[in-house]
């Protein structure tokens, strides 16, 4: 019984199985988008409610009350600041709620992910497909929120779209947030998920320069310095640069740091994903 001859054909390790590999990868994306299509309410809810309330309260209600975000800012400046911030928030939310939360559930309770992990693709690609599907949803969400952030405030924001910047920054930002979702979804489990929401999500959102430009933090230098550790800062400031005429962090900082965060989160996320699948 223990005398085993090695199989006669040596099979080279393919990156993808012959034929079908990309079909399989595309099917993983199609699966996530099918789920999205079947439950439009989920997407709409997590996409528009939060930004709508932010824009409504900070861009409409408080300016009408004569308070505004800052006493020196005009309603139109507030709307301009919020526009970039809301694009950042909505993309962050897609990463968390389209990638992170489903993974926490699928790894924790239902083990549903197992069937996809048993597909003939490298496990890392199964994780990457999830990230790409999340990225697509992030971009879609930004598209949905843009008119909202434009029309809801009491005064129209200033728009100055740099297309080359927008078309490179938006995918990078969505990829970074989706990678963050992968990382969160593979590191946290159902027992720790509420702590994650409170401890990670809230500071990311509120201290990610979504409600004020980074430069105005100059009056509180320690908050300004701390904000540089928040990946969302670069998303907000990036959108500020890409779609508004407002002052923003240097692009020479935004792009490399966003790329760095993306690489780090993707690498760690995939590593944890593999560990959850293969023991």
């Amino acid at each position, binding site marked *: *019984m*223990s005398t*085993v001859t*090695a*199989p*006669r*054909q040596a*099979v080279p*390790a*393919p990156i*993808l*199985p*012959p*034929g*079908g*590999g990309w*079909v*399989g990868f*595309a*099917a*993983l994306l*199609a*699966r996530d988008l*099918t*789920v999205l299509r*079947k*439950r439009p309410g989920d997407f709409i809810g997590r996409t528009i409610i939060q930004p709508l309330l932010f824009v409504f309260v900070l861009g409409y209600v408080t300016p009408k009350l004569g308070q505004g975000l800052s006493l020196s800012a005009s309603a139109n400046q507030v709307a301009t600041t919020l526009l970039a911030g809301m694009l950042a928030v909505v993309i962050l939310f897609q990463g968390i709620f389209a990638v992170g939360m489903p993974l926490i559930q699928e790894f924790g309770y*239902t*083990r*549903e992910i*197992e*069937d*996809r*992990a*048993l*597909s*003939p*693709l*490298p*496990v890392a690609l199964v994780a990457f497909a999830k990230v790409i599907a999340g990225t697509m949803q992030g971009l879609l969400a930004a598209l949905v929120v843009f008119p909202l952030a434009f029309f809801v405030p009491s005064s129209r924001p200033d728009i100055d779209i740099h297309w080359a910047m927008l078309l490179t920054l938006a995918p990078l930002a969505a990829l970074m947030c989706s990678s963050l979702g992968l990382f969160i979804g593979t590191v946290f489990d159902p027992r720790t998920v509420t702590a994650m929401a409170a401890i990670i999500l809230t500071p990311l959102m509120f201290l990610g320069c979504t409600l004020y430009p980074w430069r105005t933090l100059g009056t509180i230098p320690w908050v300004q310095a701390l904000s540089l550790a928040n990946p969302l800062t670069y998303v907000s400031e990036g959108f500020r640069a890409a779609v508004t005429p407002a002052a923003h962090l240097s692009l020479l900082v935004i792009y490399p740091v966003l790329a760095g965060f993306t690489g780090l989160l993707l690498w760690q996320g995939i590593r944890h994903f593999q560990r959850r*699948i*293969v*023991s």
Partner: protein
Amino acid sequence: MQSLVQHSGRPPVTAPPDEAAVRTDGLAKTYPGGVAAVRGLGLTVRRGEVLALLGPNGAGKSTTVGMLTTSVVPTAGRAWVAGVDVVAHPALARRNIGVVPQHNTLDRSLNVRENLAFHGRFFGMRAARARSEADALLERVALTQAAGRPVAELSGGMAQRLMIARAIMHHPAVLFLDEPTAGLDPQSRIALHDLVRELNASGQTILLITHDMEETDQLADRVAIIDRGRLLALGTPDELKRSVAADTVVKVVAETDPAALAALLRAEVPGARDAHVLDDAVILTVRGNGAVFPDVAAAAERARLALRDVRVDEPTLETVFITLTGKELRER
């Protein structure tokens, strides 16, 4: 699978028909922390057979299946499924592997038909072909009526049939069934056994993981008994039963120390082969079809022991297991 392989224009990845469906050589897994779940398993599953991996909980069955299906990385040894090394080429090996896990892993976000169709597409099927194959499979496992329903609405038996359909959707060389009838009602269990027989009759190689000896007796062509990560015996159910070299098995409970009772019965009952203590009972194996009950009663009377219970049976796989390990297969 065959057509997919041919489309690719590369050599077929499945091994020629004379090759074993599954082979393991010195396969071992020690988990971080030092728990040795599997210790040097050498096993061959022939093409077309149902091989049952029989053992109690914690015997290493699930770890073995995990290694064969690429979700557990062995710490030693090698394994091939359909000729593909599962450690060196896990993604490729998965093309030949169909898994029905112990728990329900159906995709709750998709309906019944979509569960099959997407699974097929994950394995490289085009959408149209995946849909038509899904419909054909649903017919085969009697779920056509439920095709559009959310999987959360399925009964346990239906969910299990769908999981089996999903596992064979990509025409795997080997189907791994991990405790497929655990938690099913008797009717669903019978239906599932019929389905397994039907699949096997159509040529599907099946590795059945179970601690249920009746299921094993009914379905398996050969049985591998494992305990504590080691293979203890391998053979057809009849071969294994014959291996205890007894025609009769007697379970005796008396008002005395079971160890003393075992020694007594071994010495006093004519044709006694062996006696094992199992909790407060003694399992006595006896050769010959003679009147075992009076022999036991006479032996007890000579020793002035009050018998509480005596049960006479033919040897079963349970007997084989008790003879090999001195313990029962079933959980208590």
